[in-house]
């Protein structure tokens, strides 16, 4: 039975319900704006302070006590080395672990224990990874305070991110694709390689972007492992000592002279450029794969 009286009341309330809807809509718009405005203010400040200091000297020079001569060549190349090696380790291992957990691992208590732990690892503070890397890679395996030790540590740090994102996107591949492939006589590896991975690639690339962005901006683990600022050479191999952009920036910000603050802002611009160019490669690849499956 429909209560006509109540129905009429509800209908007469439409104006009030629209009003409530509008209040929430404006709250959501404000929430969005807070994030964007904060970012814009940050970028404008960095731009105003840093752009005057952007020069070829900044990229070509090593650190110096004199602001006019100081550059971040060592840190820039250190960051590039660190990124390259970290990607080399974490991308194949992360995707491999995700494939195993999603496609092959038996669904039992051990597997779910591993899954829970990987999720938890994504939340462990980065300095803890730094100390782990110091004791394991630097001392126990005796790699020294090298860019190799640093990138192995950074790989551990971002592996949970890469694994979680890759698993999500592997899981999102419809089971009907797998059925279709199996029914044509495909082996499990055929299914993984030719059906699941291509379909999951855009999501996996998103995970890699997130992980690598985290790694390029991390300071704490590198402080624990390298702790060098006045480095007057670029890494010439995986066992070379190194420093990275966030450490250089931090060091400049901590200086009392006003000029170094400008240098720090310029360093942030270089760091953001590195990050964005790295991400744009991944985004380009992701869009390419998405287009291929839709066209």
């Amino acid at each position, binding site marked *: 039975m429909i209560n006509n009286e109540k129905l009429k009341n509800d209908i007469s309330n439409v104006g009030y319900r629209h009003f409530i809807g509008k209040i929430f809509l404006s709250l959501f718009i404000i929430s969005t704006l807070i994030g964007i405005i904060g970012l814009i203010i940050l970028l404008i400040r960095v731009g105003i302070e840093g752009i005057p200091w952007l020069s070829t000297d900044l990229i070509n020079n090593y650190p110096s006590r004199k602001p006019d001569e100081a550059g971040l060549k060592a840190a820039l190349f250190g960051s590039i080395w660190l990124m390259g090696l970290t990607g080399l380790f974490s991308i194949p291992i992360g995707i491999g672990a995700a494939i195993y957990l999603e496609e092959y691992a038996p669904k039992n208590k051990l597997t779910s224990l591993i899954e829970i732990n990987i999720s938890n690892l994504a939340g462990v503070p980065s300095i803890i990874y730094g100390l782990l890397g110091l004791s394991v890679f630097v001392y126990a395996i005796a790699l020294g305070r090298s860019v190799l030790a640093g990138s192995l540590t950074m790989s551990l740090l971002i592996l949970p991110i890469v694994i979680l994102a890759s698993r999500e996107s592997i899981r999102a591949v419809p089971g009907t694709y797998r059925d279709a492939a199996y*029914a044509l006589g*495909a*082996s499990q590896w055929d299914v993984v390689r030719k059906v699941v991975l291509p*379909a999951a690639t855009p999501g996996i690339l998103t995970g890699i972007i997130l992980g690598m962005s985290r790694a390029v901006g991390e300071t704490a683990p590198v402080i624990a492992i390298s702790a060098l600022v006045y480095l007057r050479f670029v890494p010439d191999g995986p066992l070379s000592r190194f420093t990275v952009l966030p450490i250089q920036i931090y060091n400049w910000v901590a200086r009392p002279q006003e000029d170094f603050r400008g240098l720090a802002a310029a360093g942030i611009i270089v760091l953001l450029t590195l990050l964005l160019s790295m991400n744009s490669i991944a985004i380009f690849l992701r869009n390419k794969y998405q287009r291929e499956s839709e066209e």
Partner: protein
Amino acid sequence: MNTILEAQHLNVWYGDFHALKNVDLKIQDQKITAFIGPSGCGKSTLLRCFNRMNDLVTTAKVDGNIIYKGTNINSKSIDPIKIRSQIGMVFQKPNPFPKSIFANIAFGLKVNGFKGNMEEAVEESLTKAALWDEVKDRLDKSALTLSGGQQQRLCIARALAVRPQLILMDEPASALDPIATLAVEELIRDLSSYITIVIVTHNMQQAARVSDETVFLMVDDQRSGYIVEHDNTKQIFTQPKDERTEAYITGRFS
């Protein structure tokens, strides 16, 4: 009458649930056999035994023999991959890969190590599935750009590409509109001149229209499926021997 596939004392369990009970059945070569029956009677389960798709369900257990051309393909010593490249399958919802039309057809050939001319093989399969004229100018476009009916005929072409002698179809037209359904049914009739087809359908008119043989399944009070009657389609739809079959086909229960 030649038998291409025979199920002997087939029983299927999902965990503790006895899904299919004591199935004995002969599928005739180069005929269309339809499985009909109410929801949950095990039609699809039975179909998925024939190409070992139930192997992919970890809780499933299939007991009994399935003799395909003299070999028991339900034996653990037989690799299901080999069976699936000889017995094709078409699913309820069209499920082309998110790849080009060409790549969809080529997929099965590639995984089975086909070494011949791929262009010719793709054209041949699409022609057999009556799809070539509609797609020949856009083979490099994604299969997802096709209509639902075209997608399903593409899935049939994809199954045909690996040249199976038997194709299993699990309600292949249930997600299609009436016109697309008719096109698929016509295609199934054409294919039956050289291929054996087993088709599961909810639609009794469809079974009557396309099939030569009809198998009627039902569920018992433990929800286990079993075969009630198997005869040629005309017999089943005009003079069924079992009164439960008659009740079902005249629509007295579903």
